[in-house]
């Protein structure tokens, strides 16, 4: 068991090192997020009340798109340089290593995303209930996005065209999006959001237990 924890942290550290060495890669997802958020007002005109109404939706959709964009990096280079074979052939369960990689992705991507989304909400002066809902839904959903994303990436890795990924992934993300948006809308209307939060927490638990196993299986299938 102790050995497993050690392996988990070695893989985690490996992925984090790879990203932190290239500082740009760390900051870019956040920049992408911010830039896309800026795009929308340009596209929708500058009607302030309208924009305010849309803000939390925009933040959420953008978070989703940014995640899709960032996902491919989870396994791509490993696939290209043959590291993935070595992970599969290692003495330890692949599930363990997949979990470490997904955790790394969430640390690099999900955490800062939550932070910046909340910051954006603050700048665009959302109400505190909305902010609260935004924060909680993102906190519960970003790990789910990483976990589910990893499955589809594992399935499509090496197949040409990053688009296949988005195609598979976006439908899977819809339930998360729907419930999160419901929560945000309810919060904005001053209603309770505990039902949605419980539901999202349920999805999270489900994803946490099942997604790594599924991803490992998908990787094996993809490589054989």
């Amino acid at each position, binding site marked *: 068991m102790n050995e497993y924890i050690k392996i988990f942290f070695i893989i985690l550290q490996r992925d984090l090192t790879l990203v932190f060495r290239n500082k740009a890669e760390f*900051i870019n997802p956040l920049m992408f997020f911010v*830039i896309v958020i800026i795009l929308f007002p340009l596209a929708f005109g*500058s009607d*302030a009340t309208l924009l305010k109404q849309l803000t939390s939706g925009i933040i959420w959709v953008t978070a989703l798109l940014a995640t899709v964009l960032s996902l491919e990096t989870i396994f791509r280079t490993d696939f290209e340089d043959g590291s993935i074979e070595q992970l599969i052939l290692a003495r330890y369960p692949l599930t363990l290593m997949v979990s470490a990689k997904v955790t790394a992705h969430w640390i690099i991507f999900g955490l800062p995303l939550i932070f910046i989304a909340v910051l954006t909400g603050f*700048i665009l*002066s959302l109400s505190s209930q909305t902010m609260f809902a935004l924060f909680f839904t993102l906190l519960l959903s970003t790990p789910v996005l990483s976990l589910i994303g990893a499955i589809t990436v594992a399935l499509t890795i090496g197949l040409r065209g990053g688009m296949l990924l988005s195609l598979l992934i976006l439908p899977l993300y819809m339930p998360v999006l729907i419930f999160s948006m419901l929560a945000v809308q309810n919060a904005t209307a001053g209603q309770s959001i505990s039902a949605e939060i419980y539901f999202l927490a349920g999805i999270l638990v489900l994803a946490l237990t099942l997604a790594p196993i599924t991803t490992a299986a998908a990787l094996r299938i993809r490589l054989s």
Partner: protein
Amino acid sequence: MNLYKALPLWFHKLGALKYFYEISHVISRWVSVICVICFITGLYGGLVLAPADYQQGDSFRIMYMHVPSAWMSLFIYMVMAISGGIGLIWRVKLAEIVARSSAPIGATFTFLALATGAIWGKPMWGTWWVWDARLTSELILLFLYLGYIALQSAFEDRRVAARAGAILALVGIVNIPIIHYSVEWWSTLHQGPTVSKLDKPSIHMSMLIPLLLMTLACKTFYVSSLLIRIRTEILEYECNSSWVKHLLGNNKNVSN
């Protein structure tokens, strides 16, 4: 064709990095003296001597930071793009270094323009931020700077990075006229040209002079901090050359 060959010759003379390293020290010292003088007198004139605005009261005084830094953000971008272009075409090292070193300063001024603008916007428009064309395009300028900096850090080789950055900066130049003319092309909340209408500035002298002083202070600040950055960059560029090794006592590896 003649210019194509003559210009780099002239530049190479100035661009002899060792020579530049030596004289820049003196220049930067004098420029920073001018900077401090302009800054103090400008601030005094702007915050104390200039009369309060009949519409805006005292809140207009943030103009003395906002307008110069907004101008600088555009100016430095032009410097960055043009010197990048010179480095790209004629392979002049000094021009590459100027472009590289300008980016962080330019980003800072852009940030300042945005921040002071937002602070000024609160009393004027009742909100920190609106999505109008001037504000948005200035924000895009910030991202151009940040993108340039990110690109620089993504390359291992400085010279390759400098040339890649130059291309990005040159392409991004389209944004500059958009920022400048945005107030005329779109109906925006932002103030139209008031100071920069050279023929007949629609601003009172007692307000204008401190503004000009502050502008000069910002310019000289840029020059002196640019020179300081250039000097460290030169050392990193030339870390293998004998004069740098000599300068650093010959026993340190400064490659990173």
